[in-house]
Structure formats: C-alpha cells, structure tokens
C-alpha cells in the first residue's frame, strides 16, 4: 500500500508533465478504441450479412462436400434428422438446399446457370433470399395452375435469355442417376440486378430440384442459423453430436467459406498494424517522460537504496508508476471513447453512396460496443506501459547509492 501511495504521489509531483503524459496515452487509447469499434462494427455487419445471406452459421453436409461440392454427394434429410437438428440448443432456423448447374434456354438463346433448390418457407426465415426479389414475387412450393414449378432467376439469366416474369424457362442438366435431366419452369420472380452474386441463379422449390436432379428426399446442404456467427464453431460441435453415422459432418461457416474467412482475418490483422503504430508513437513520448522522471530522481533513488530499498523494489516502483499513468489514461480515454463508440453504434456514419448488395442496402458505417473494443486497447496500453517502464526501471535498480546521491 505504501509503495502504491509512493508511486501515486510521485506521478503527482510534476502535474503538468503527468497531465500531458496521461493525455497522450488517453489519446492513443481513444484512437485505438474508436478505430476498433468502427472496424469491428463494420466487420460485424459484413460477416453477419454474409453468413446469413450465403453460408448460414453451420452447414450439415456429406463429408467432403464442403471441399469438393458435386451433385452426387447428397444425403437423405429425414423428418427425424431435421427435428433433431432443429432442437439443438442455439439453432434458430434451418433450411435444406440442393445446388448444381444446368443449361438454361429461353426462346432463342441458352445460358449456363447455377440451380438452387430451396424450401421457400424455411429459406425465407433463414436468408435474405425473399428480400432480393426485384420483379415478380417470391417462390412458392406449389406448382402453378398449369403444373409448372415456379422459379426465380438471376438478373443476368433474365437478360441473357430475354426472360421476364411469367415466361417459360427450360433447364437441361444431368441427373444424379446419370440420366438426362430437362424440364420446363415458369419464371415467378427476378432476383436483384446484373452484377449481383445471384445473377446466374435459378432458384426453384426443393421438391422440384429433387425431381430435376433425381435426388428423391435428398439434399446437398442443411444450412443452419444460430444466434451469432461468432459462436458457429461451438454450435457445429453440438450439431455434430446429433448427426447419425460417420458420413455426415457439421461445419462452421469459417470452414465452409475458408477463403473468405482467411481474407477477412488477414484484412483485420492488416488493420491492426495501424493500431500498433499509434500505440508505438504514444510509447515513444511516454518513454521519454518516464526516462526524464527517473533521471531527475536519481539522487532520491540513491537515498531509497541507501536506506534499504532493494533493486527489485525500485524497479517495481517505476513499473507501478508507469502502470498507474496508463490506468488513469485508459480510464480517461474510456470515458471519452464511451459516448463516441455509442454514437457510432447507434447512429453511425452515413455513407455518401449507400451500398446495395443484392438488394440489401448498407447506408451507415456502424461501430461496436463490446468488452473487446474497450478492453483490448487497455490491454495493449498496459502492456506497452510495462515495456516502456523496463528500461527506466532497470536503470533505477542499478543505481549505485553513493554515485546517485552526489546528484542531490
């Protein structure tokens, strides 16, 4: 307690210098915290959107399908299996999908397309598919009055094949049994705009896709949504426990979209360099201050050593003083960062041009309020402060009392 008192009073000796040092460290904390908040908020938005829109949080597939998707790696999705997965704690929604490719024909032209078979109701509850309809209407499970299954087609498919809502689309492909697959469908809706990820899609009801590709009762993926994309690996483990047999596996989105995940992680790590540069620049200034403070008190350290203070205790006194400065700076920085991060989270910065991704509009850069956004900068500043204190601390510990006291 006495050492803490001594450290605290020491840092109050030169109040102006302490204030400037604290402000410099608090400024560093503030910059790091706000930047982290905005970056994390942006990544959060992107990842939440991406996983909901594309991969879900977890996927159940046949082993190896995630790495090498083929028509033949399908599995039978029974009602029991679907129910078992839906009742796993944390599962909020699940939707089966079939995926393969085909050649689409309009009146006069053909165009390669990516065929998706989905359960319209389950898919609408899980992904943004229903929000992407730019013309016509969303998919229905039942065929129309003439017995045609309805499909939604990507904007590029519509343009290349000169198709509009209500017109007929012919698909030709290969069935899982090796047969030639071909059928006629009614365009029920158009998805997004040319350039969107769905521009080459043809989305049809699951039953129609199973019939087209000759996969009765089978699916390629069961896409599952949990509460949070971050907890996907744990959710995948829990789901894995209810899967029957050895051939099925539950993979988190980080595995399903490995390249995307690695790119995002690398991008994030790249952004951290800026943060470390900020901390480094702050540290240089603080190191100068701490060194100056130690040099000024050389004589006093000599006295402390003369009356019995051990070198280690002197070292820790310097570390304690620097850490106290850092803690005060972090608290001050945190107080200022709190309303700023809150504003970024609730309000955000309006983008000059809102981003339209497949019909989903991003209009604001949002921040994030989390323990990480406030705790990580504090950890970095505290570690940096401890490192800064090493050299002055060692210098103080090595002081020879009789030499040091000559400076008094």
């Amino acid at each position, binding site marked *: 307690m006495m050492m803490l008192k001594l450290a605290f009073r020491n840092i109050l000796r030169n109040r102006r210098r302490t204030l400037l040092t604290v402000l410099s460290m608090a400024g560093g904390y503030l910059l790091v915290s706000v930047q982290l908040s905005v970056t994390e908020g942006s990544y959060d938005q992107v990842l939440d959107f991406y996983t909901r829109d594309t991969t879900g949080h977890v996927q159940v597939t046949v082993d190896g399908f995630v790495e090498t998707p083929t028509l033949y790696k399908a599995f039978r999705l029974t009602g029991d299996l679907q129910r078992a997965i839906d009742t796993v704690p944390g599962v909020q929604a699940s939707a089966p999908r079939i995926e393969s490719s085909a050649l689409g024909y309009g009146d006069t032209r053909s165009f390669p397309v990516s065929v998706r078979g989905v359960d319209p109701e389950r898919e609408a509850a899980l992904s943004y598919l229903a929000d992407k309809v730019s013309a016509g209407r969303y998919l229905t499970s039942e065929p129309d009055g003439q017995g045609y299954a309805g499909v939604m087609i990507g904007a590029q498919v519509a343009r290349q094949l000169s198709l509009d809502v209500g017109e007929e689309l012919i698909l030709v492909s290969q069935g899982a049994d090796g047969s030639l697959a071909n059928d006629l469908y009614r365009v029920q809706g158009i998805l997004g705009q040319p350039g969107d990820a769905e521009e080459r899609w043809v989305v049809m009801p699951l039953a129609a896709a199973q019939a087209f590709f000759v996969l009765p009762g089978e699916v390629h993926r069961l896409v599952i949504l949990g509460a949070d994309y971050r907890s996907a690996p744990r959710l995948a483990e829990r789901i894995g426990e209810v899967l029957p047999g050895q051939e099925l596996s539950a993979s988190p989105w980080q595995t399903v979209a490995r390249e995307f995940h690695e790119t995002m992680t690398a991008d994030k790590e790249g952004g951290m360099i800026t943060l470390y540069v900020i901390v480094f620049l702050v540290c240089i200034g603080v190191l100068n201050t701490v060194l100056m403070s130690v040099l000024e008190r050389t004589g006093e350290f000599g*006295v402390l050593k003369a*009356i019995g203070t051990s070198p280690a205790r002197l070292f820790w006194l310097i570390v304690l003083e620097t850490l106290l400065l850092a803690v005060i700076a972090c608290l001050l920085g945190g107080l200022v960062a709190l309303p700023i991060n809150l504003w970024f989270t609730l309000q955000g910065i309006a983008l000059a041009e809102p981003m339209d991704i497949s019909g989903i509009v991003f209009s604001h850069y949002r921040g994030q309020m989390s323990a990480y956004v406030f705790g990580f900068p504090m950890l970095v500043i505290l570690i940096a402060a401890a490192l800064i204190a090493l050299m002055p601390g060692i210098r103080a510990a090595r002081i020879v*009392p009789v030499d040091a006291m000559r400076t008094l």
Partner: protein
Amino acid sequence: MSSVIETRDVSKHYGEGDTLVKALDRVSLGIAPGEFTAIVGPSGSGKSTLLQLMGGLDNPTHGQVHLANKDITQMSGRELSDFRRDHIGFIFQAYNLIPVLTAAENCEYIMLLQGVPEAERRERVYAMLERVGLAGREGRFPHQLSGGQQQRVAVARAMVSRPDIILADEPTANLDSQTGSDLLDMMHDLNRNEGMTFVFSTHDPMIMERASRLIRLKDGCIDSESEREA
C-alpha cells in the same frame, strides 16, 4: 569489547596511473557498541568515503568491512540493500527525506521494508517522532518542515528501525548553530539513554565536543585517535 563495525586495511582509490587518487589508504578501525564517535579531518581527508564504505554504500578498492560479523564487501547489491535496511541507520547532510512521504511515512518506510506489522510501525513511529520533538507534525511533508525539523525526522528515520549503528555524514552542516546544537544534544541523549551507536563524519566542533572518541584522518590515513569522557 567486540566491534559493531570493523574496517580492515580498507583502501579506496580513484583513477589510475598518474591520476590515481588514494581517498583512503589502509584504514583499520573498530567501533564498539554505544560509542559516539566522530571522524574528523580536513576536506578531502576521506571522512565521507570511510563512512560510505562502513555503510556499504560503496565498495573498497582493497580491504574488508565487517558488520555484525559479516564481510559486507562480499555481498551482492540485493544482499547489501537488505543488510543496510536491517543493520544501519543513515543521517545525511542534506536530510534526504523522501519528499512525497510525510514525516511519519518517511520513518515508517524502512520498517515497511523490514516487514514490521502496521500497528507496531505506527506505534514506534509516533513514539520516535515524539522523542525527537516532532509530536503533532507527523502528517507534514518535508517541505512543510524547517531544516532542523527535517533533520530530526532523518534522525527518527535512522533510529526507528533499531539498527546496530547510525552513520551520520555531517548532519549539522546545513543547520544554524542553535538548531545543530539542539539536534546533537538529542542524539547524545539517545546515545546515552538508549545505547545507540553513532559514527559521525564532521568538522563541526560541536560534535567533536560531545564525541567520546575522535578519529582524525589526514590524506586518507588515520592521523590520530583520542578517547575521552563525553
């Protein structure tokens, strides 16, 4: 009588070759318990250097210093710190109190390092400050005290941890004669009543008058010694 502190052939040299300075040259002496000794001599005679070597603040170029039957010249920095803490009290010419600690905290600090329980620390500090005439000024910081009061705190700090010996380097040099005399009377009382051993380095005649033993240094060597009834 066995010595509290003993120097054996202690030398301290600075520089080398043509620039060699022998601050102390083969000084051997012993200080018995309860002595009130003054090491005197002109400036540059080696008084302060001898005191620093006796207190383990510096290492001799040659020779040994024994305190509590241990050769302190062989100790590491850490061992020396602990040894000074437990066995030696220092009083400096410039008081050298810790400016951010109050009078009481300055005295308490060494006992804290010694691991004395808080209640006992407080009790001893308040008793000692009363003993040196500073009752009621325990909470004052050094800059709120006069030079004489600061030196009294320094005396209290040196004594409160109950060391084997107190080494005082020109303790009255920065004080006016009346304050210096009062302070010396107080230390003399502590010596006579509590048997505390004092060694001074000084050229203050007031200390020499009160000293039971005078060691005169000249050019780094003991020139003469005298003992008398103080």
